[in-house]
């Protein structure tokens, strides 16, 4: 997807599926409302779909989507009555001037996919550590293995994750 700079009928579904989840999570990190996040992102994609012939992407699809969704979120926070409750808790100026990056959200999506490819035991240990927040001691106790074994599994998982993701330039810039 990195080298594509055009959103067309042919690649629209692929683009949507690749970015919808990370973009929703990105928006939700600001407004903490999943329904609102989906609406904002879906609305952005609708607009893109309707105007896809007229869109000129000068950087990358990722950057274009990021800008579109972020602007839509900013407008929504400023004007949408539905998001009024966030108007006071979110500094729109901060959002405009110092926005969060989208890359961590894209990376999280890919990490989750890559974790699915780990062997079951390694996946279990890694998930308990990183997704459930258990300490290594707690995992060791839960799985009746040594703490060192837990550490080895998590370390090995990190190595394998990096191996799977390292060539994805879009994730690491």
């Amino acid at each position, binding site marked *: 997807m990195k080298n594509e700079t055009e959103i067309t*009928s042919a690649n*629209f*579904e692929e683009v*949507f*599926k*690749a970015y*919808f*989840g990370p973009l*929703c*999570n990105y928006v*939700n*990190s600001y407004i903490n*409302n*999943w329904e609102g996040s*989906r*609406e904002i992102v*879906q609305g952005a*994609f*609708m607009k893109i*779909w309707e105007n896809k012939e007229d869109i000129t992407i000068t950087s990358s699809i990722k950057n274009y989507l990021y800008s579109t969704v972020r602007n839509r979120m900013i407008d929504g926070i400023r004007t949408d*009555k*539905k998001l009024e*409750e966030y108007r006071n808790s979110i500094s729109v100026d901060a959002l405009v001037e110092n926005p969060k990056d989208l*890359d*961590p*959200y894209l*990376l*999280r*999506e890919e*990490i*989750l996919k890559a974790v699915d490819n780990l062997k079951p035991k390694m996946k279990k240990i890694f998930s308990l550590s*990183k*997704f*459930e*927040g258990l300490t290594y001691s707690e995992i060791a106790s839960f799985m009746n293995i040594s703490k060192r074994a837990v*550490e*080895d599994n*998590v*370390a*090995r998982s*990190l*190595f394998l*994750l*990096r191996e799977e*993701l*390292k060539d994805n330039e879009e*994730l*690491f810039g």
Partner: protein
Amino acid sequence: MITIEHRLHIDMSKVNEIDLLRYSQGKLSSEEANKVSKWLSSDPKHQQDYEAIQRIQSAATDLAGHRTFDVSTEWLTFQSKVSPGLSDYDVLQLVDHTADYKTKKKISDWAAVSSDNASVIDQYKSIGGALDGIRDYKRIDPSEAFEAFSKALTTVPFSKSPKNTPTPASPTKVPASTPSQLSPTGQVVTMKPEREESRSVFPLWMRYAAAACAVLLVGALVWINQPKPTTATLIASTQDEFITLSDGTEVRMNKGSELTYFVDVDRVNSRDVKLSGTGSFEIAPMEEKPFTVTADNLIGITALGTGFRVEDHPDFDKVVTITEGSIRAFSVEEEDVSIVLSAIESAGFRDGGFERIIEEEEVIYDGEPHTVIDVLDHLMKASSWRVISSPYTDFDGDATVMIDLDRPYEEILTILNEKQVLSFTELNCTGCYKVTKFVGEDE
């Protein structure tokens, strides 16, 4: 590097370069050495030549002992000595933010060795940063999200081949002018007649005598063999379906209904469609081409720029209700049996004749009690997310309302508005509404 910056001025008839070389090596006989010595002293340039040859010889001697190295290999060797590499455990501490000073320095030193190493560390740091927030990350099924998105669109985005089996779905709109773009929700069958091609070949001797006849004959053949317009059939097999015909007419079909229509209405003289079941029509104005709906081969409805609904009814074979403009409804079997209706009249057809139906204005609030929140949930799902609402906190979570949720969602909206439970405004897509807490006209 030794460079010879002047031309040699050796008189080859007396002394040659080999003599000079051997002279420098002390390998000449006395007589030969004297000869060279005299030659050298005869001209300062000769001495310069001799010195140049000596320098070349010296460099050649050095090169004989020169050794080349594979600098890439040497560099790797150097790197391994400078930093022995990181273990998985080092990386784990980096990602977990538990590395002590010694480990951090080890990592830093390793990263500093090369840009590749630095890149590896950056990637692990990025992964670590992503993992820090991953417990708050919600994984959204992209296929489900895309399906919901597709249904919310007023037009279908992609070209797919016609499906012969219906799939469960929510209402979508299908532009009828592009038969290859089909609703993923309903069943659209595009039937193309076989194209008959023919050629006329006339014997040469007839060319001049029958030229006019040939032109007429070819013209007739071309007319006969015009590609016949295609028709399409939309079946609302499991859900209501929306469709926009090529002339802009909008049709909503209830679940279980079937509509056959001309795909390219510009190529027909009249706009004729066939409906089986229940459908609502908003006819696009086109005075030169009347729009006629034949409903279950019982009645026909001819309209010009009007809106109407044709449906089944327990007491009639068919009922027609006009929402806008006027129509003429007639019996298919006997066209003279007809009725003209204007908005907002209704007529039922039975026993071969039409009867006007006079609706009472009273609205019947039937159904079961539901909380407003449950009704909102239902509205959003039943409309395939065409209905959106303000945050639920705007509504009284304990309030209940009597409503039949089997009604079409737009009817539910109307009823709840009349009951002053909610207000709704149309959005910029067919069947789309935004629901808010009830706002009276005076507010």
